[in-house]
């Protein structure tokens, strides 16, 4: 009787470990093939026929459609330069240059990846409408308060993230060593 009980216990524990690690791995997603530039991350593999099983499982659960390798690459940032999570009550400067791309869009999402409503009806910017400095760099101000220049309003979110989608970029065929992403600098908080 004793060995049988031991085996049963071992099986239950094994099932628990197997299922919980599988759930964690799929929920966290993008364990493999993550590309990191500064604090920005992207998973180019997710949009390719060679996507790993974890990425495929995560996409199946969310219904999200990744950008294909022939379309572009989406980078996400959810922390500032100091490593603190992006908070909806603070003002941030997204300052610098993007890697080469024919077109890019920067969009703000809440923690769950949903668009956020605001009075200004603006969820993001694209590369053909922002104000730039003479050297081509830009400064987008993400803030709950009205700002001069490229103001991306956020309202009512405790935490948020920014997605920079680079369309038609050479990054999809490999990461050049010199590619830079804009810095995310926190200014003041309310």
């Amino acid at each position, binding site marked *: 009787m004793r060995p049988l009980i031991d085996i049963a216990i071992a099986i239950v524990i094994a099932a628990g*470990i197997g299922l919980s690690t599988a759930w964690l791995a799929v929920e966290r997603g993008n364990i493999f093939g993550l590309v990191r530039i500064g604090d920005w991350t992207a998973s180019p593999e997710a949009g390719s026929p060679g996507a790993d099983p974890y990425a495929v499982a995560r996409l*199946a*659960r969310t219904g999200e459609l*990744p950008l294909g390798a*022939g379309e572009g690459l989406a980078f996400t940032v959810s922390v500032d330069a100091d490593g603190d999570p992006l908070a909806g009550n603070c003002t941030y400067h997204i300052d610098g240059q993007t890697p080469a791309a*024919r077109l890019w869009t920067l969009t703000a999402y809440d923690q769950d990846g*949903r668009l956020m409503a605001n009075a200004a009806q603006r969820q993001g910017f694209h590369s053909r409408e922002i104000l730039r400095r003479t050297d081509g760099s830009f400064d987008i101000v993400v803030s709950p308060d009205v700002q001069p220049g490229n103001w991306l309003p956020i309202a009512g979110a405790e935490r948020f993230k920014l997605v920079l989608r680079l369309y038609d970029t050479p990054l999809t065929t490999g990461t050049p060593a010199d590619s830079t992403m804009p810095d995310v600098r926190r200014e003041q908080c309310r």
Partner: protein
Amino acid sequence: MNRTLLYVIGGLMLAGIIHITSVLMVPLFATADAWSQMRQFGRDGAFHVLPQARPGAEPLDGLDPRMLYSVCRFSLADGPLQISAALPDSFWSIAVFDRRGRNAYSLNDRAAERSELDLVIITPVQMAQLRQDPPEALETAIVVELPLDTGFALIRVFVSDDTMLPRARAALDSAECSNAI
């Protein structure tokens, strides 16, 4: 002691097997995957323009609010699929996914080197049959061999501002997706 070690090793191996199987099974049982969600937009075998993503009204997850999308669920069981559309020259791209949401093929307007999208998706078996007597449609189109039975195509068109919306919508309304060949 030995027996305990045996249980631990056996348990870990079993946990590994359960982990791998459940990850692989997730796509088979997912009910909220892109394919299932697309049923709401209309019948298979035709493109449907999605409403623009707005806060609180996002037709699918993770869409770019600055793009207008059109989707077509298709089957290659009745023959190769022809996708055609006259699209604006700002920026557009098309992605083809399999039933499980894996990206099988993608292309943007510059790579296509033309503004008229003309794409034929064909299985290797159908291609082998058609090689004997290739129809005219195959000569001008971009022909992509994919081992799919069902899947969906997603076209995205860049909308720089709201004044461009009617043009983008009209272009996507013209998109066709049929087993005509």
